[in-house]
């Protein structure tokens, strides 16, 4: 059964993740061409190009939709470029979905790609004392792993999580990534390997924190009517059933990048859901399904411990039960609800504007039964979840 607000995923494509050091446009074009081939349509069939921006590659990155459109050859298609930190890919997808649902486009290309510098992600150069992203580095020395570690330590002190629990997330994801040709890291690791890697921000070790990568991902979205006309031997298409790009509700009470403080709960009571809980909740509401209906989830494991937070925030278990879910094997391939069968950020590293799109590629392959070597058997529904900085986050429910 399909909902009246569904759109179809006609094609997906990726450029492998790595540290290639080449122009990001190349990765995006490769991914877009793969997605067009996968969809079985011509580039000229696309009437809307929605780019997810990169902030680290100069002007072409700020107008990514036009950059990719020109590289593929101008066709007169409408264009938009979106930036929403780690959620950029889904913000671009949402622009395409809403345009299709409004009847203003039939077929859209959603594409994002990045070339990243080495080491910690740091703010742009120059003194910018009114920019919270500059201030947290300057005044506190607070890097991205600082925030990941605050979340991890809280799990330990409040729920009794251990370093071994966290390491097991990496072990699971590394095993899944062995079968993913687009993953940057395809190497099995043990709990001992993880715990022996250098401590970056206690309690998180180097192997528990996602790297920054180069990569590109693309999705061809179309109206259900176009998909029906186009359907060949491929059978029913994967559908986008729900998209969430919600912002936090005041007071936002969980400290997150790049802020140095939370909102105040002195006057306005906290919402029943935290921001991260509200992200997936909105996607479920739109899709009309819940966590019990899922076959798999792709969540943003910026750190091992953050994957465990997501188990709770997308409703796979109650608060404080994520470690039990992991240790029972529920979230491994073959378990009740596999999480990050792609290998996750643990195996990819983050290519910011491409990552949320890559999550959609993986769920699409899973729902089509094409995730060779890492297939979740009989998958019918999947969710993606991610969180960026400055109040961005996204979640997409896909069904087939």
């Amino acid at each position, binding site marked *: 059964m399909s909902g009246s607000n569904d759109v179809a995923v006609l094609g997906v494509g990726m450029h492998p993740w790595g540290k290639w050091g080449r122009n990001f446009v190349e990765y995006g074009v490769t991914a877009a061409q793969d997605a067009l081939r996968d969809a079985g349509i011509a580039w000229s069939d696309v009437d809307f190009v929605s780019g997810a921006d990169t902030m680290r590659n100069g002007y072409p990155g700020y107008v990514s939709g036009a950059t990719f459109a020109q590289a593929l050859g101008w066709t007169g298609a409408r264009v938009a470029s979106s930036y929403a930190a780690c959620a950029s890919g889904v913000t671009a997808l949402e622009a395409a979905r809403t345009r299709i649902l409004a009847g203003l486009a039939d077929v859209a290309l959603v594409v994002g790609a990045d070339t990243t510098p080495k*080491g*910690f992600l*740091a*703010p742009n*150069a120059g*003194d910018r*004392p*009114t920019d919270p992203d*500059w*201030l*947290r*580095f*300057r*005044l*506190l*020395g*607070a*890097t991205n792993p*600082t925030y990941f*570690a*605050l*979340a*991890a*330590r*809280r799990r330990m*002190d*409040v729920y009794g999580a251990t370093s071994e629990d966290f390491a097991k997330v990496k072990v699971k994801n590394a095993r899944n990534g062995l079968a993913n040709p687009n993953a940057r890291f395809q190497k099995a690791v043990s709990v001992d390997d993880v715990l022996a890697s*250098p*401590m*970056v*921000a*206690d*309690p*998180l070790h180097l192997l528990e924190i996602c790297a920054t990568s180069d990569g590109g991902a693309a999705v061809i979205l179309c109206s259900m009517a176009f998909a029906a006309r186009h359907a060949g031997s491929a059978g029913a298409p994967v559908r986008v059933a729900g998209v969430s790009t919600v912002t936090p509700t*005041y*007071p936002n*009470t969980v*400290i997150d990048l790049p802020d*140095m*403080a*939370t*909102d*105040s*709960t*002195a*006057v*306005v009571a906290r919402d029943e859901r935290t921001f991260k809980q509200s992200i997936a909740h909105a996607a479920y509401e739109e899709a009309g399904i819940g966590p019990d209906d899922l076959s798999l989830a792709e969540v943003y494991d910026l750190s091992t411990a953050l994957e465990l937070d997501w188990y709770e925030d997308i409703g796979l278990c109650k608060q404080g039960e994520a470690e039990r879910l992991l240790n029972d094997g529920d979230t491994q391939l073959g378990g009740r609800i596999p999480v990050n069968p792609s290998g996750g950020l643990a195996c990819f590293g983050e290519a910011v504007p491409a990552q949320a799109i890559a999550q959609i590629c993986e769920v699409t392959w899973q729902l089509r039964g094409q995730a060779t070597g890492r297939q979740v058997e009989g998958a019918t529904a999947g969710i993606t979840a991610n969180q960026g900085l400055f109040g961005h986050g996204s979640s997409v429910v896909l069904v087939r």
Partner: protein
Amino acid sequence: MTAKTRAPALGSEGWFTADPEPALLGQQCTACRTFVFPKAGYGCPNPACLGTEFDEVRLSRSGTVWSYTDACYQPPAPYVTPTEEHVPFCIAAVELAEEGLVIMGQVVAGVTVADLRVGQRMELVIDVLFSDDDTDHLIWKWKPVTEGEVA
């Protein structure tokens, strides 16, 4: 040798005071009374309030640890490493009960993560973030309250 000038680190001017006691300076909306730290640049962040005027308030000088970590690697610029070689330091997020705020800060030198736990009491101090030839650049830091001390 003349004494160095002591000044808030760039970007934190007006965010804290050492006089008469160390305290963060937040704001309280004159309309809805919610608290804000760091100071609101534009208007009240409470979406139900259109307030644009604030009282400057001294925030509670002590609170409890919400979470904590350390910086084992040298943070990149614009962080200024205060010593020749990077010395790991802790960062804590501390919950102020009265204001309902959680505020991050470096923890004073000499404290390691082994000395910290969620829920423990911390107090605010004003300390040197880094120094250059003529100025000590100041910032707030959190310091564990030892048993028997009154914060």
